[in-house]
């Protein structure tokens, strides 16, 4: 049966009026075989591969964009966690920083805006190379433009590495000091149960369980979902869930088609479709506004957690029906600075850090892109991270933290990052929290998997 005018119009309207786009095509690249005891030799091999594949990624993304008329907003590269690549190299910060700069140069030459993977898996313990990488993060991320970092600090099977959590509080403060408005901190996320195939920055990396190359895709349609919720103002929640499912099914199928075709053109394996709702600062492209369209007066007020839980579940059901390759984070992003509705809610006082933390227990992906005063002590940052990661560890899900301590700012101030990163209202946090708890260090053991209440 030929497609009807109505169906065509529905799709066209999604891209024209409701910001439907393929948020990112991310190519995962294995660099393990490039490893060397000599940094120059490693950098040369890695450079060649990143530039060659990055240029192809750009070329084919443009071709597919033309063919299907769906914008592909970002083209990115994720690499083998850099801490592994540092293993054979000398243990000093300068080497790690030079490695980051080499990756940055390769991404620039390939025309790729972000390259993810400057990170380590340290949920149980740190090798000396891991520690070296963490020590290098402040310099590496403040002196490069395109490199993004991640650290997996916890997992359900290993527990929480509190040595690394305590260390990272200081790393963040140092990084914030070295970059304007602390913006360097927007380029690193810490995780519990990090997925190895997530296409979204800042946490993207090409995990060790991945093939040589893998093409992953992140779709995004908060605007599309919001529109469909607005068009059903009076139906009950069961019906609303159905409507959301159907819409997400459609956009996931589009993502799957584009991902498969991209992978085929690039002659690499197709990885996953990440169905996370990823907001942007454009008007209407907001997750908070979906929740508000569902009937919650403002994001953060009572009712928000239930509404968000239902929304995310409907998104997952629709997506899972549409594609057998759903993976990555596949939750809902609620970054404070990148979502106009979230910013409004923080300014109005309805959304606090405590409520945000509660929301992350029902949806991915954690406390994301929120600003705190620059004089927040390192142990308080570590304590916020430990709290958030424990939600992921206990509930067997991914959680992450991307916090930006902004030097010289106090609660209520607004900081404009510009571009995709939006602007963040500085949130109120305690100045004194749990210094003694963090100073204990060690590892919070992995949780029991029975007795689930």
């Amino acid at each position: 049966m030929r497609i009807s005018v109505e169906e065509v119009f529905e799709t066209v309207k999604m891209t024209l009026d409701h910001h439907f786009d393929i948020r990112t095509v991310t190519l995962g690249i294995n660099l393990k075989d490039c490893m060397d005891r000599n940094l120059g030799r490693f950098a040369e091999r890695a450079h060649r591969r990143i530039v060659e594949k990055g240029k192809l990624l750009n070329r084919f993304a443009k071709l597919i964009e033309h063919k299907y008329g769906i914008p592909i907003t970002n083209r990115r590269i994720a690499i083998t966690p850099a801490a592994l690549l540092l293993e054979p190299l000398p243990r000093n910060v300068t080497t790690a920083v030079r490695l980051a700069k080499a990756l940055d140069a390769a991404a620039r030459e390939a025309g790729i805006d972000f390259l993810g993977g400057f990170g380590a898996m340290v949920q149980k313990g740190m090798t000396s190379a891991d520690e070296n990488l963490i020590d290098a993060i402040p310099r590496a991320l403040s002196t490069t433009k395109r490199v993004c970092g991640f650290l997996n600090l916890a997992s359900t099977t290993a527990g929480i590495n509190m040595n690394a959590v305590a260390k990272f509080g200081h790393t963040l403060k140092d990084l914030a000091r070295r970059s304007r408005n602390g913006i360097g901190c927007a380029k690193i996320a810490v995780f519990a149960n990090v997925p190895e195939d997530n296409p979204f920055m800042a946490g993207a990396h090409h995990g060790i369980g991945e093939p040589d190359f893998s093409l992953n895709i992140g779709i995004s349609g908060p605007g599309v979902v919001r529109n469909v919720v607005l068009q059903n103002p009076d139906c009950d929640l069961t019906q609303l869930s159905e409507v959301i499912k159907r819409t997400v099914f459609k956009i996931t199928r589009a993502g799957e088609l584009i991902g498969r075709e991209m992978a085929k053109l690039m002659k690499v394996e197709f990885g996953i479709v990440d169905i996370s709702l990823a907001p942007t600062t454009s008007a209407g492209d907001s997750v908070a506004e979906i929740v508000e369209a569902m009937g919650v007066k403002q994001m953060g007020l009572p009712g928000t957690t239930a509404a968000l839980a239902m929304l995310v579940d409907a998104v997952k059901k629709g997506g899972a029906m549409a594609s057998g390759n759903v993976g990555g984070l596949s939750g809902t992003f609620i970054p404070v600075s990148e979502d106009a509705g979230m910013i409004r809610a923080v300014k109005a006082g309805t959304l606090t850090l405590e409520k945000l933390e509660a929301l992350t227990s029902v949806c991915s992906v954690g406390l994301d892109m929120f600003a705190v005063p620059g004089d927040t002590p390192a142990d308080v940052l570590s304590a916020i991270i430990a709290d958030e990661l424990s939600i992921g560890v206990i509930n067997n899900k991914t959680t992450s933290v991307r916090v930006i301590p902004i030097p010289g700012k106090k609660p209520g101030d607004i900081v404009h990052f510009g571009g995709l990163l939006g602007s963040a209202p500085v949130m109120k946090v305690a100045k004194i929290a749990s210094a003694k708890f963090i100073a204990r260090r060690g590892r919070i053991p992995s949780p029991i998997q029975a007795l689930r209440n």
Partner: protein
Amino acid sequence: MAKQKAKTAQICIMTVTGTDRVGIIARLATAMAKANINIIDVNQNIMADCFVMTMAVDITKAAIGMDIIKKRLDKIAKEMSLNIRFQDENIFKVMHRV
């Protein structure tokens, strides 16, 4: 033979939205003919106060690439104050057919 032909056909859907006026189809049909593109089907409707026309075309034997087709359509869109999209049919098929 016929089966093979059907398999290799590349169908695209052109979507035109804007205000209805004399000569839209004529203008677009001429552009398609010049590029050796066969028109398979034309439909139109008024939706949400908006004139919408879709044209299914086969670009298998097209003399020019999709990027150039789009450039020419953009020019027509500008001159006739219309919005024209040109997309491979498969995107609609995957989204609207289970």
